[in-house]
C-alpha cells in the first residue's frame, strides 16, 4: 500500500527535481511583462469582492495597510491572516497538502519561503508596474514570482526608564554580561521568520557559541519578533536580544520609553517579499492588491505608519529615524536560510530548551 502522508519538507525535497523540471522550465523561458492596473482588473476584483493576505507583519500595521487598500478600492474586503512567518509557512503547507487553497497573497518575513514555494510551483508570475520600474534586480524574482515588499532590521533595544543610555548594550556580546541575567527578552525562530533569519545571520557571523551563552542568561522566550518591543514598552524586560526595529520606531514615536541599538557587530537585515499564489481563490483581487502594495503610495504608507523600510527607488525615509545607509548591516542570504532552516531551529531548541 502506498503510504500517503502529509507533506513534509523531505518529501518536498525529493519531489523538487520533478517540480523544477515541469514548472520552472517554461517559466524561465521569459520573465513576464509588467502588468498595470486596468479598469478590467479592478472590475474583476470587485466581483470577487475580497482578498486574503497571509502575512507576518505586526497585526496593527497589517490591518492599517489592509484598510488603506479597502479605501482605495472600495468593494474589495481585505482579510488579514497574521501569524509568525514560520507558522504561516507550516499552515500553508499543511493546507495545500490537503488541497485547501485559501491563500491569495502572502508576505513572509522569511524570504527563503519564497524559494520553496517557487520551487513547488505554488506561485503565480505577476509583475506589478512599480516593481518593473522602481525595484532593483536584487529585490525582485527573475521570473516575476515575488518582490521585496518590505525591509527592516532585527535590533537590540532597551527600555529607557529601566536602562540609562550609557549603560545600554552596544553589541550582541554585551548581552552576555552577567548584569543582563533575567533581563532579556527575545523572539523564537520556530515562530518568527525575522528571528529565524536573524539567528542565521548571527550564528554565521558570531558563531553558535553566542547563542549557547545567551541561553544561559535566563531570557524571557516569547514567540513573535513583534513581541520583544512590546514587552520592553510594558517594562517587563529591560533589553531585547532580537526583535523588530519597526515596532521600536512605532512605540517610541507614540511616546513609549524604548530605544533601538545598532550593534557594533552589525544588525541583521530582513527582507519580506510578497507574492501571489497560483491557486488563489480571488486571483484578480490578489493581483490588484499585489499591484497596489508596491505603489509608491502604499510603500510610503508602510514607512509612515509601519516603521518599515522600503526598497522602492522613489520612497523616502521618515525624518527622525536612523537612515538605513548609516547602519552597519549583516548580509541576508535566503538561499542559506532555506538550506539550514531545520538545523537552525533544532539547534536553537537544544540551547533554549523550547
Amino acid at each position: 500500500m502506498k503510504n500517503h502522508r502529509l507533506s513534509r519538507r523531505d518529501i518536498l525535497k525529493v519531489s523538487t527535481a520533478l517540480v523544477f523540471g515541469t514548472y520552472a522550465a517554461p517559466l524561465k523561458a521569459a520573465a513576464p511583462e509588467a502588468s498595470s492596473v486596468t479598469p478590467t482588473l479592478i472590475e474583476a476584483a470587485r466581483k470577487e469582492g475580497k482578498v486574503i493576505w497571509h502575512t507576518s507583519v505586526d497585526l496593527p500595521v497589517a490591518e492599517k495597510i489592509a484598510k488603506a487598500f479597502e479605501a482605495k478600492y472600495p468593494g474589495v474586503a481585505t482579510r488579514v491572516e497574521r501569524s509568525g512567518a514560520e507558522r504561516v509557512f507550516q499552515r500553508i503547507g499543511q493546507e495545500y497538502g490537503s488541497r485547501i487553497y485559501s491563500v491569495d497573497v502572502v508576505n513572509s518575513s522569511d524570504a527563503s519561503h519564497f524559494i520553496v514555494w517557487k520551487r513547488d510551483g505554488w506561485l503565480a508570475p505577476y509583475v506589478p508596474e512599480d516593481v518593473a520600474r522602481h525595484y532593483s534586480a536584487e529585490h525582485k524574482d527573475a521570473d516575476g514570482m515575488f518582490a521585496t515588499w518590505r525591509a527592516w532590521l532585527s535590533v537590540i533595544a532597551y527600555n529607557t526608564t529601566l536602562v540609562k543610555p550609557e549603560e545600554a548594550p552596544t553589541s550582541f556580546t554585551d548581552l552576555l554580561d552577567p548584569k543582563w541575567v533575567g533581563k532579556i527578552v527575545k523572539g523564537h525562530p520556530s515562530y518568527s521568520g525575522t528571528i529565524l533569519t536573524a539567528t542565521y545571520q548571527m550564528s554565521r557571523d558570531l558563531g553558535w557559541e553566542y547563542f549557547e551563552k545567551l541561553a544561559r542568561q535566563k531570557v524571557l522566550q516569547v514567540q513573535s519578533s513583534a513581541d520583544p518591543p512590546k514587552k520592553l514598552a510594558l517594562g517587563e524586560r529591560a533589553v531585547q536580544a532580537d526583535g523588530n526595529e519597526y515596532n521600536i520606531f512605532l512605540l517610541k514615536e507614540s511616546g513609549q520609553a524604548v530605544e533601538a541599538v545598532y550593534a557594533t557587530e552589525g544588525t541583521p537585515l530582513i527582507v519580506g517579499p510578497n507574492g501571489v499564489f497560483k491557486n488563489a481563490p480571488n486571483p484578480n483581487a490578489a493581483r490588484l492588491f499585489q499591484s497596489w502594495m508596491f505603489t509608491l503610495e502604499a510603500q510610503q504608507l508602510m514607512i509612515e505608519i509601519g516603521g518599515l523600510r522600503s526598497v522602492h527607488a522613489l520612497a523616502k525615509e521618515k525624518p527622525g529615524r536612523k537612515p538605513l545607509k548609516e547602519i552597519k548591516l549583516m548580509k541576508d542570504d535566503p538561499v542559506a536560510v532555506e538550506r539550514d532552516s531545520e538545523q537552525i531551529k533544532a539547534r536553537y531548541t537544544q540551547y533554549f530548551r523550547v
Partner: protein
Amino acid sequence: MIGSLEEVRPRKAGIDLSWAVLLFAALTLCVLIILPVSWLIFYSLTDRAGSFTFENFLRLATDPAFVDPLLTTVLIATSVGIICCLVATPMSWLVARTDMPFKRTVRIFVMASFVTPPFLGAIAWELLAAPNSGLLNQLHRVLIGASSDVHLFDIYSLTGLIFVISCYTFPYVFVLVANALDRIPGDLEDVSSILGANTWITARRVTIPLAVPALLAGALVAFLQAMTLFGSPAILAIPAGFHTMTTKIWSLFQYPPKPELAAAAAVPLLVLTILLLRAEHMILGRRGYSVVGGRNSDPRIIRLGVLKWPALALCFLVLLNPVFLPYGALLNAAFSPVPSQLLSFENATLHNIEFVLFELSATRLALKNTFLLGALTASIGTVFALVIAYTTSRKAIAGHRTLAFLATAPVAIPGIVLGVGLFLSYTRPPFVLYGTLWILLIAFITISLPSAYQQLQAAFRGIHPELEDASRILGATRMQTLGRITAPLLRTGVIATWCFIFVGVIRELSAAIMLFTSETKVISVLIFDLNESGDLAAISVLGLMMLAITFAVVILANRIPGFGGDIRLRNA
C-alpha cells in the same frame, strides 16, 4: 445504578426502529472515537515509510526533550491535584454544610471560575504577575518602595503555572465534594449525635469519611485536567523555557511536522487518562454503596457562630485568584493605553475596542465560526446525547450498556490527543474534512458528548417510568409518549445541556489549535494567535466579549428552575 428502578421492557413491536437507532448511534460513536484513536496508534507505531516500528516510543523514552516534559507534566498535575483538594474541600464544606452567609454567591463565583477559559485566565495572570510589568508586582514595589528589580511573583515559572492551572481546576473538586456533601443524608449524622458524639466528632467520623471518595475522585479529575491542559502551559511555560506534554505534542506539529512522534507522545497521555478514569470509577462506585437508601433527609447545617465572617472572607480570598483579580486585569488592559499601566480617567481609551471591532479583520469570521460551531455542536450533541440517554436509561434495546460505554468513552481522550487523532484521520481520503468546520464540529461533539450524556441520563433518571407507562397503557405510541410526557418533563435538562455544551465549545482550545485553518479559525485560537504576537490589549477586549457571551448563556441556564448550574462538571 443497577436495580435502582424497576426495569421496563419495551414492546416487541418497536424493535425494528430501535435496532436502527442503536446501530446508527453505535456506528456514529465508533467513527467518532475509534477512527482517530486507531490512526493515532497506527502512526505512533510506524516510521515515515509506513513500516512497523517501536522507534518513536524508544525515542520518547530516551530523549530528554521528551522525558523532561513528561516528568514536568506529572509534577504539575500532582501539585494541582493536591492544591485543588486543599482549597476546594474547606470551601465546599462551608458552602454545603454550614450557615455561612452568601453561600449562593460563593457558588456563583466558583461557577464563574469554572466557565472562565483557562487560557484567558493565564493571560490575565501575565498581566497581574509578570515579574516586572505585572500589576501586583508593581503594587508590591510601590508599597515597599523597592527598586525595579524586586518582584513578589513570577508567573513565568513552574510554580506560577501550577498556581494558574489550580485557579481554574479547583471548581471540579469543589463541585464533586459539594455535591457529595449535599447528598450525605442527615439521618446518618443524627444517629451519630444521638449516640453522644458532638458536632466535630460527627464531622470527623461520619461526614468526612463519606465525602472522602468524592474528594479522591476530585483529585483525580483535577490531575487529569492539569495534565491535558494546553493553553496555560503554552502561554506560561514556553516563555519560561520549558515544555509540558501538551505543548510538546503541539510543537511537534510545527514545521517540519513530525506526526509520528506527536502520535507517540500522545499515547502516554491517553493511557494515563484511561488508567486514572478507571481508578475514579472504582472510587465513585464505592461511594454509591455507602449512601444507598438514605436520600430523603436534608443534610445538617453546622452553625459557625462568629466564625462565619472569617469563613466568608476566606472564600472570597480564594475567589480573588480565579475571578476578581484576573477580570480586573482584563478590564484594565482593555481600556488602558498600555496593559501594564493602571487605568485612570485621564488615560482611558476606547482604541483597543475600536481595534478589535473595526480594524481586526479576523474578528468577524472567528465570531461567526465560534457561534456556528457552538450552536451546531450544542444542538447535535444534545439530540444525540438525548437519544443515547433515552435508550440506556429506559433500557429500550439490548446492547444499551455498550452504547452507554461508548458515549462516555471520549472522556478518556484529552483534547489535544483527539486533535492529533482527528487531524491524522481527516486529512486523507476517503474523509477529507480538514479545512472545513465539520472536523471541528466532530471534535467538539466528541468532547462534549460524555458530559451531555451523563447530564441527560441523570435527567431521565429523575422522571419515573410510571408516567410513560401510564401513557402507553392509555394507548399512546412510544413516539407520542416521548412527545407528550417525557419531552416536556425533560425540557429544563435539555436546555441546560445545550447551554453547557455551547459554553464548553467557546472555551475549547486544545483540539481547535490542532484542527483550525485560516477559514475555520475560532475565537479561542484567535486569542492564542494574538498572545503569540503580544497584543494583550486586543486579547483583553476579545476575552471580555467571550466572558460576556459565556455569562449570558450560563445565566440563561441558571434561570431555568430546578437546574443547579453545575451538573456538567461531573465528568468533564
